[in-house]
């Protein structure tokens, strides 16, 4: 038995003891989370605003599109003829491939020009020949062809000097 109580004074001390009882008990953090979860399950607390969710999805899609565009443009320009021509880190094999690509591109461009203009423009072949001649002379200056270029240049000069004869298929070979 507690020695704080004597039979004669319990009545007098009860009110003071009642008022001294603790009035609060802190909740456990987990209990709050449980209530929040239950409330969300009942639809009381919004999970995420659908409006903001939609806006976030649009922003994410736009960002992905922009990133994809940038990456695609970078990859495409990295392998373009112009970009390859400016690079200094190519191996010899790469440079040979580059020359082939450039030559093929030139042939396609000249054919395209000839097909588009030769039937109505009599100077088309001359223009194409002179461009090719200029390219051959540039190659000759680089001394890369082992004497082939002078022969080709002479042939092209004579072809350019002749008047156009009967209609023929205008294909420029490289």
């Amino acid at each position, binding site marked *: *038995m*507690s*020695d*704080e*109580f004597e*039979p004669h004074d*319990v*009545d007098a*001390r*009860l*009110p*003071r*003891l*009642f*008022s*001294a*009882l*603790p*009035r*609060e*008990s*802190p*909740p*456990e953090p987990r*209990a*709050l989370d*449980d*209530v*929040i979860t*239950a*409330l969300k399950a*009942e639809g*009381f*607390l*919004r999970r995420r605003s659908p409006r903001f969710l939609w806006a976030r999805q649009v922003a994410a899609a736009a960002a992905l599109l922009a990133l994809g565009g940038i990456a695609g443009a970078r990859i495409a320009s990295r392998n373009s003829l112009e970009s390859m021509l400016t690079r200094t880190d190519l191996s010899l094999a790469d440079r040979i491939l580059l020359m082939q690509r450039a030559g093929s591109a030139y042939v396609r461009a000249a054919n395209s020009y000839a097909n588009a203009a030769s039937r109505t423009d009599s100077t088309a072949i001359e223009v194409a020949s002179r461009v090719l001649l200029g390219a051959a002379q540039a190659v000759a200056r680089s001394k890369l062809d082992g004497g082939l270029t002078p022969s080709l240049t002479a042939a092209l000069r004579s072809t350019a000097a002749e008047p156009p004869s009967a209609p023929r298929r205008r294909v420029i070979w490289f």
Partner: protein
Amino acid sequence: MTRRGLLSELTDAALIGRFLGGDEPAFRELYLRHTPRLRMMVMRLLGAARRADLDDVVQETWLAACRGVHRYAGDAKFSSWLTTIGIRTTYSRFARTPDVESDLFDEIPAPVGAGLASVIDLERALSMLPDHQRVVVVLHDVEGYTHDEIARQLGIASGTAKATLSRARSALRRMLNDGVSHVG
């Protein structure tokens, strides 16, 4: 100032308004503001034998309050309204399980002010009362409810509340005089 700091300056009515709009931080603030007192009262009403039900009853109380918060008119203090729901929720728990006895006091917070031993003895004596007596004495002598209010809360006659309180106090005196640890 932090969000919590800003919310702590809002009134209960303002927090309830935000909660009804789905604002979770507002509910958290409301919960943290009122749960300590609610939890202590429910703990005392349940008694030591039902201490394991404490957090369930507190959670049930909050869920019931949230479901009916649109009926909260704001003319009474929110804490009183919540306490009322807590009392009913606790009382309904008694109906589910018969009186059980236990001697667990590990969750009772340490009292301040009055002699520690005597307050603990009172807490122990309260816990050993039968459910219907403990509820009446806690509501009247600890929480400060009148007999009429207790009668309304528990659905009993006011005279019954008075008689129950009288019997509960006699039992308390007897236990405290005889030594709580020797009773039961």
